[in-house]
């Protein structure tokens, strides 16, 4: 394991050693991401086997430190891909350069990769002309630090992905204990100039506001609108405008970025329902039957369906019968994994298994972890719809109609669990 360069950079080495001994090599599971050793606080995040640690003796903004560590991972990933020991060793000079740029005396500075890449590259630093230099500095410090001037495309095109992960915790009796959708709108923009964009979706608050003007429309569209509990935006979005008018307007960064995140809890379409039945037959046998039902339009297809049924630690053998797909007992994971490639809406499928148990004298009962499920569906379980994305670029000669736009909806399972 490699302690991050970042820590060794600004602090005495013994602090790094202390961290290594006390946290990385501690026998115990990590009990807190913040550790205080000898009046020094260590923040850490882990990416595969790399620990990134930040160190301080002051009362710093802890949320900012973690946000920065994540951001640092993003920046590194954007430069050299996966954060691995090898990649870090291969790029340590680059990492020093990046750190020097995005962190000054503990204060995070501009960390937008778009801007950074204009003057820090993997091939070393480009020499720039005077105009370029001033352009760089004004971009790094400017109001629109995430986009440079003078971008040109022959074809103006944008892609919108509505990516949702639907989370569910259901009781064995089928009662929804908690359910929410956390969604992201990811945009890929290939637009010339400094385009002004406006994004609209079926947000209940907006629709109701508009509905007041045209009374007859309220009934119709009100049904299809969704209540968004909360949303957060990329820094390009004008927050004060959203706060006052609830309109989402921005000048997008070039390329891919996450425009917004949102969360909904009401009227969620739960794509699958899992009905478990676990019966203990004596002390050495369990009978498990699980039914899954798909609950969406029959014309749509769900993909990559996987149901994971946990088995006790003292399982000695498993026999499975399933109507559809393939099921296997994986002893190393203590679970039966049932995979189905595709399943249409309004269908039902079933698996039954007999689990043989070794007799144990362990008094503690099996904790019965929940049955979890993975899937992907081609719609947004929250019901979110993109209504429009308008593009205005007054200085260049293309209009909203000339921009080619693509919208795609993908719903995935987040933590989708049913207790058994």
């Amino acid at each position, binding site marked *: 394991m490699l302690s991050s360069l970042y820590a*060794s950079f600004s602090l005495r080495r013994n602090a790094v050693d202390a961290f290594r001994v006390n946290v990385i090599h501690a026998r115990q599971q*990590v009990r807190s*991401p*913040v550790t205080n050793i000898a*009046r020094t606080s260590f*923040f850490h995040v882990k990416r595969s086997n790399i620990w990134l640690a930040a160190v301080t*003796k*002051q*009362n*710093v*903004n*802890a*949320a*900012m430190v*973690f*946000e920065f*560590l*994540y951001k640092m991972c993003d920046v590194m990933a954007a430069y050299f891909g996966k954060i691995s020991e*090898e990649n870090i*060793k*291969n790029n*340590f*000079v*680059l990492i*020093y*350069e990046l750190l*020097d740029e995005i962190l*000054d*005396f503990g*204060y995070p500075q*501009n*960390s937008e990769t778009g801007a950074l890449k204009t003057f820090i590259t993997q091939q070393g*630093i480009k*020499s*720039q002309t005077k105009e370029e230099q001033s352009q760089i*500095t004004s971009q790094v*410090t400017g109001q629109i630090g995430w986009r440079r001037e003078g971008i040109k495309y022959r074809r103006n095109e944008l892609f919108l992905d509505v990516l949702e992960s639907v989370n569910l*915790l259901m009781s064995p009796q089928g009662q929804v*204990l*908690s359910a929410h959708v*956390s969604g992201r709108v990811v945009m890929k923009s290939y637009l010339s100039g400094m385009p002004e964009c406006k994004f609209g979706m079926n947000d209940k608050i907006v629709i109701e506001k508009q509905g007041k003007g045209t009374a007859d429309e309220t009934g119709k569209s009100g049904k299809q609108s969704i209540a968004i*509990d*909360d949303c*957060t*935006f*990329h*820094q390009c979005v004008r*927050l004060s405008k*959203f706060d006052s008018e609830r309109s989402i307007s921005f000048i997008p960064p070039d390329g891919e970025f*996450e425009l*917004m*995140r949102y*969360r909904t809890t009401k009227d969620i379409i739960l794509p699958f329902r899992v009905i478990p039945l676990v019966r203990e037959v004596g002390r050495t046998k369990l009978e498990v039957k699980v039914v899954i039902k798909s609950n969406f339009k029959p014309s749509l297809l769900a993909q990559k369906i996987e149901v994971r049924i946990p088995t006790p630690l003292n399982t000695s053998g498993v026999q499975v019968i399933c109507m559809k797909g393939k099921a296997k007992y994986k002893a190393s994971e203590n679970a039966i994994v049932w995979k189905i490639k595709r399943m249409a809406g309004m269908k039902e499928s079933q698996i039954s298994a007999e689990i043989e148990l070794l007799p144990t004298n362990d*008094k503690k009962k099996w*904790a*019965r*972890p*929940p049955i*979890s499920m993975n899937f992907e569906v081609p719609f947004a379980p929250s019901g979110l719809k993109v209504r429009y994305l308008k593009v205005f670029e007054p200085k260049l000669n293309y209009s909203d109609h000339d921009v080619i736009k693509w919208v795609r909806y993908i719903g995935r399972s987040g*933590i989708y669990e049913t207790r058994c």
Partner: protein
Amino acid sequence: MTDSKYFTTTKKGEIFELKAELNSDKKEKKKEAVKKVIASMTVGKDVSALFPDVVNCMQTDNLELKKLVYLYLMNYAKSQPDMAIMAVNTFVKDCEDPNPLIRALAVRTMGCIRVDKITEYLCEPLRKCLKDEDPYVRKTAAVCVAKLHDINAQLVEDQGFLDTLKDLISDSNPMVVANAVAALSEIAESHPSSNLLDLNPQSINKLLTALNECTEWGQIFILDCLANYMPKDDREAQSICERVTPRLSHANSAVVLSAVKVLMKFMEMLSKDLDYYGTLLKKLAPPLVTLLSAEPELQYVALRNINLIVQKRPEILKHEMKVFFVKYNDPIYVKLEKLDIMIRLASQANIAQVLAELKEYATEVDVDFVRKAVRAIGRCAIKVEQSAERCVSTLLDLIQTKVNYVVQEAIVVIKDIFRKYPNKYESVIATLCENLDSLDEPEARAAMIWIVGEYAERIDNADELLESFLEGFHDESTQVQLQLLTAIVKLFLKKPTETQELVQQVLSLATQDSDNPDLRDRGYIYWRLLSTDPVAAKEVVLAEKPLISEETDLIEPTLLDELICYIGTLASVYHKPPSAFVEGGRGVVHKSLPPRTASSESTESPETAPAGAPSGDQPDVIPAQGDLLGDLLNLDLGPPVSGPPLAASSIQMGAVDLLGGGLDSLMGDEPEGIGDTNFGVPPAAAAAPARLGAPISSGLSDLFDLTSGVGTLSGSYVAPKAVWLPAMKAKGLEISGTFTRQVGSISMDLQLTNKALQVMTDFAIQFNRNSFGLAPAAPLQVHAPLSPNQTVEISLPLNTVGSVMKMEPLNNLQVAVKNNIDVFYFSTLYPLHVLFVEDGKMDRQMFLATWKDIPNENEAQFQIRDCPLNTEAASGKLQSSNIFTIAKRNVEGQDMLYQSLKLTNGIWVLAELRIQPGNPSFMLSLKCRAPEVSQHVYQAYETILKN
């Protein structure tokens, strides 16, 4: 191209080879060599020998090479200061480079080199860079001022950099503004008195404008800075809140949390009747919930903060219980925090759901988590009465699982449920008794024994059960021993006939065979009670117990308010004020919430607002009601002592002492067993270890006082020691103390008692800034480790040269005491007369002139009632406390004493004391240029005259 090859060279002549390569003519080779050097440096090898060679590479047009060399310099300049000078020229030159990136790089690096000689050369380039035409250079220079200040604060002030920095707040570029704010905030933290961040409505407006335009990090700096601002009224607070709320939708969690901090703080000023107040409350909930979908580490930070917010304003998240349900794959630290918040949010409305969840958690794997879940079920029972029955049955189900630690935890909480709802759930006792054998933890054993003793009359074989414990009496922990003793005595009082033998046995075990003074004390007191007056014994031992309160482990209100001001920072993660984990003076400025402006909701009570205290615009520390209550109770219970506690004596008066100690612990109803919930009954001087020959306890000195006479002439009046920090608040450490002044030196006389079961070591003490700059003159010296039940007395010399901050009330002193277990905080009020200096006698002429000179509105009048002294005695008493009588007149049968005194900080107070023979009420007029001290001087008069 990869850099990993640089890490692999480990040959012997490495340094030598590198040296050759560094001096190569080829640029590429040079660069490669520097990279190798940096790689060696990174893995911790010492490459400082190459210093001159690396510095030689500095003069280059190649920006990449330059950066590498700078990196090397930052690391090694400190160890080679003389050589570092070689680099200065290049730095200075680079600061004038036409390329703004190079200018910024140079000034950035120079600031990181902590060598005095370099910093001297830094000033001129820095001055230029602060006014550079390029914003990139300016924003870098702004941070550089903070760096320089860290190295040499005086230099920064002398060079006028602070003013330039302040100007940058009005810069046209938002990032420059943000960095200037960050730098100023950092500098201001080490200079709390200076008016550096002179925030006014205009500058606030500028910051709010920049807030909309700068980077996410800049927004954090600005919001953190805004949080320190004190709006002048509720309208200003509201308008700032309105402009900050949009930040709640930011994708960066730190921006959101800092915005929450500003809002939580300014909300204090808004009236609850205001529509906007309700709107704001509603707006706060969704972003807080959203924070829970962040990465686990941030979730943890968010949850620790939500824990504070829920305690401060439970209404915000009261409907959001479900989001705190634990997910199977949450990291353990997230699980534990969620559980904590769930209990805080539990109410009648959601209790069914909560219980179902908790039951689920109690079957999980992680032992800590399961224990906490079981404990949580008990807390729900105590908190929501309607749910008690279901909680109890859930706990019984859990006991049936026979999982050892689950059973033990359940028994501990069931004991608390019995205390809260007496005579309701005793039917379950039989089930509990079945599990007696599996209990191996002291806390669980003690709880079970308590239950058996308390309900002895309903348990047929109570005597057998208790007898079985008695067999291994000496191997039990003190907690269990004490509980067993009490339980058997209870049993005897309930069933005297068949248990006489048992009680004899336990009493002799406790009194004759035990080394533990606590246990012996309690044994003796029971013995005596039982043998002299069994009826009284019954009344005492079987007295009705006070009900336990429903909310436990809430953060103490003053600390909570302070922590709210630190939302998002480490302090809010640790739930400790910064002074507890930050070394030195930086960042330990005590922060407090702004006062509510609407008068209808004033939290001030007349008792806590001293007369003449500045009102309104001053930050108002909400008094720690818990603390005050505790203190008052202690004062009431403690015997009125007036002898000097320093007069150490080792005379033993066993019986009396035991009586004193034992009684207290009896009345406290076994605080050891139920300490955590039994608030308000302080374990008073229960553990006076007469055996150790330590100085006598307060109970004894009370008796002594009858013989040793009143007062001494050697020093000022000394108040009896009061308990400042009850043991239950400080993991077993009890601190009582008083202040003395003897021959010119002030000291804090402390009595530390270890009531825990483990040895305490590594004591240290620290004061927060206070009105008169009181500070320890020497470290707290406890020479030997403090073993359980041991008490030490320490006299801590104080001086008055510490940093000054006006406290509310004026004589408030906040103290932190550390030991090997934890850091504890308490606050105490010191009597002002310890600050009266020996040369406080004013010349007569001077007195007259001064008296006239001080405006009449500064005069304060007080009445001292019920003081039976005559003029001479009063004057003498006051004199020994350094209040000097300058002149005496007799006017119309009244004695007029003109007196003066001087405080350690040089403030003179002039007094006129009118005494009418035969009338026990004295009239006191005080004149002082700082009228806020008058109230406290009056109190000092009263204390001195009446004791």
